[in-house]
């Protein structure tokens, strides 16, 4: 065996009295993909932050290729060949792809100092370099495009190019597939395999166990800041990993909804919205039903939800709530008709991180907690407490600001806000994206409960197993149109991931 690329032993870190890591250990070999798993709050991000030099550990030893790291700074970590690619790519939106790549290679003292800060930029060389790197990762992206025009998967490829360009031997990928469609995931996996074949080590963080078992060589489970164990993939089962993560028995499968279906709660007929790229959308969802909305990224699912919700009103078509035609031109009207929408990207759209949980929960139902035009703080508190209990939101109090919560708990706060409006129809956009396994199961169970009580649910999801397991019916979109509908009864075996994918991709 060659020297370890990375070895962290006994790493301990405490933030304001909260123990994030306690004597955690982790190592990485060359020619290896090593998965790091754990619930949100297990300490994965803190460990990564220490490895990348963003944090200094309180105790413990960090070695890179046998050398002990004493200087914990991002610059040092970068020069040691460590690069991290985060869930949310951190590109400069107004700079071009080439500039973004160049900045990553030139700043941080790697080049800038001796080449001079004031020298003229060699644009041709920059573009050339960017083009080469993008080619290396198999991305057909024009280096002149501004980063803001890139889709999320494209941004990720640029991030990877940056890492390759910086000659990183240790690549850390934090939830890289969270926003990718299946084909994009496959492409990423081929890339990861290629990096491994070149002798690099990849630390792979994900909540998706299927992915981990398909790509990782070894798996390390973190729980409550401690390393529970490291095993080779073939020596452990998914159930065992989940058990280790949770510290308790959990069924790996999604709960399967079995609810009687009632009248049509929401129907749209030939809905078009030119600006959002939607044309002639017709669909309906019944009370007690979970309708899955499948499709690739950019198929128009989010746009459809936003159109129905009045955020980007439709140009033509009909919307019927309980059989009655309505016109929805703003979210407040949609709320008035009993429609709720839990958006994707909870940090940007879901929660107000500065606000306490209580204000976040009551935000869409201020009228209910302010019957006489004044906010009744006691009622607001009780409302929040009720949902904190019901959704098992883990926080110190209803006054804790939403920004201090973990992803899963933030998502539950966003959900609570919409449940507080008492909706008849709830549209959920990627409800379980990027949340830990336990929160995900709780969210799924909640959806089943809500449907059981007669709520009509529309679920947008990019995760095929999730959409197949949860939905009564699945509607597949592609390029702003509905391409097919699959019924999904237990008795019916017609719904397969392949079938959904072929509709979504358009070669059935």
């Amino acid at each position, binding site marked *: 065996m060659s020297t370890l690329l990375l070895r962290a032993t006994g790493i301990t870190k405490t*933030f304001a009295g909260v123990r994030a890591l306690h004597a955690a250990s982790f190592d990485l070999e060359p020619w290896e993909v090593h998965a790091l798993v754990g619930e*949100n*709050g297990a300490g994965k991000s803190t460990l990564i932050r220490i490895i990348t030099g963003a944090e200094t550990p309180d105790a413990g030893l960090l070695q890179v290729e046998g050398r002990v790291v004493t200087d914990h700074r991002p610059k040092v970590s970068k020069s040691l060949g460590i690069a991290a690619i985060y869930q949310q790519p951190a590109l400069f939106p107004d700079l071009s792809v080439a500039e973004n790549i160049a900045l990553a290679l030139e700043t941080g003292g790697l080049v800038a100092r001796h080449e001079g800060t004031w020298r003229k930029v060699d644009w041709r060389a920059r573009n050339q370099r960017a083009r080469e790197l993008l080619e290396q990762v198999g991305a057909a992206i024009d280096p002149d495009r501004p980063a803001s025009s890139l889709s999320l998967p494209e941004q990720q490829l640029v991030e990877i190019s940056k890492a390759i360009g910086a000659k990183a031997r240790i690549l850390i990928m934090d939830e890289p597939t969270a926003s990718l469609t299946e084909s994009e995931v496959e492409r990423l996996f081929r890339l990861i395999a290629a990096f491994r074949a070149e002798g690099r080590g990849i630390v792979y963080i994900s909540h998706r166990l299927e992915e981990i078992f398909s790509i990782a060589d070894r798996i390390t489970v973190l729980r409550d800041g401690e390393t529970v164990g490291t095993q080779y993939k073939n020596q452990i089962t998914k159930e065992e990993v989940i058990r280790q993560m949770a510290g308790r028995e959990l069924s790996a499968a999604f709960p399967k909804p079995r609810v009687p279906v009632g009248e049509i709660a929401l129907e749209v007929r030939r809905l078009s919205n030119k600006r959002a790229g939607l044309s002639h959308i017709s669909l309906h969802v019944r009370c007690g039903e979970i309708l899955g909305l499948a499709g690739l990224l950019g198929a128009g699912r989010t746009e459809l939800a936003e159109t129905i919700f009045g955020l980007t009103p439709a140009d033509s078509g009909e919307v019927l709530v309980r059989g009655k035609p309505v016109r929805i031109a703003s*979210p407040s009207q949609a709320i008035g008709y009993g429609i709720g929408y839990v958006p994707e990207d909870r940090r940007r759209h879901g929660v107000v991180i500065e606000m306490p949980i209580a204000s976040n929960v009551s935000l869409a139902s201020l009228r209910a907690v*302010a019957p006489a035009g004044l906010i009744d703080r006691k009622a607001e508190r009780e409302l929040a407490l009720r949902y904190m209990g019901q959704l098992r939101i883990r926080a110190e109090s209803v006054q804790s600001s939403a920004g201090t919560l973990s992803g899963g708990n933030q998502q539950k706060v966003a959900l609570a806000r919409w449940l507080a409006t008492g909706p008849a129809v709830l549209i959920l956009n990627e409800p379980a994206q990027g949340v830990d396994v336990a929160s995900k199961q709780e969210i799924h169970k909640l959806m089943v409960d809500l449907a059981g009580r007669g709520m009509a649910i529309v679920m947008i999801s990019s995760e095929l197993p999730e959409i197949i397991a949860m939905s009564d019916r699945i509607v597949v979109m592609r390029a702003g149109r509905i391409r097919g509908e699959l019924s999904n009864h237990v008795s019916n075996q017609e719904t397969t991931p392949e079938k959904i994918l072929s509709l979504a991709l358009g070669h059935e």
Partner: protein
Amino acid sequence: MAFAAPSFFTLANQRDVLMANMPVLIAALGMTLIVLTGQIDISIGSQFAICSVAAGLAAKSGLPLPAVALAVLLSGALLGAINGALVAWARIPSIVVTLAAMVALRDALRWATQGAWVQELPRSFQWLGLTLSAFQMVTAGIAAILFAGAAWGLRNMPAGRAVYAVGSNENTARLAGIDAARVTFWAFTAAGALTACAALLNSARFNQIPSNAGLGMELRVIAAVVVGGTAIRGGRGTVVGTLLGVILLGAIGPALTFLGISAYWEKAIQGAIILMAVATEAWPSQARTWEDGLVRDYN
């Protein structure tokens, strides 16, 4: 300070400092609303000037006092509403809109008045026809009511909650059914009316109204809001902080006089305080963005 010049802390002196700053406080209440929604209005000095001159002209025309007050408040609200509409619905950045408004309003006023001051105000206008001390009481009373109303409304009314929500995260606020554009529009309009109120009370203190009233006022007011701890990017802050900001900045000048230090230092000290306020705001918020990476992990 307390040792160097104990008389600085006498009641009479405190009252003088407070009285001189009442107009600033009232205008700063409006600015707090605007800054909380994540916007800024640098044209309020010009609005103040127009409202002051309007108050004088209305008073000279012989209108009864309530009518003068109403006219001035409406003209302030209108000026604020124009800015607000351009920011909220035309979606032009507020710094651009109000920079243009600052220059345009100021020059329009200069053109209209030809630089002449409004003089020979009717006796019934000065001190609003009251005695000096009664007028001061009324001014303080109005300021207190507006202050309490703003503090209470921001805390207890859905509209106040909407102001914070829009300033913190406009996306989320819109999805929650809050009409962010309307909130922004009304914040500017209310601020315009408050500025007009400040102008009215200020004009009544003197027997003539300069056509260049309120020059540099936007700086004092924005500084008070920022020193009072309101986040310049919106969503965080209180009017109580703004009150403290007004008092702190307003006390510097008189304090220097009492200490026998040249008044030229006033601006320098003001600047230093503002810098400190902004820096202390920037530090925790930077810590927060660092935390962003952590929060997912150490709940």
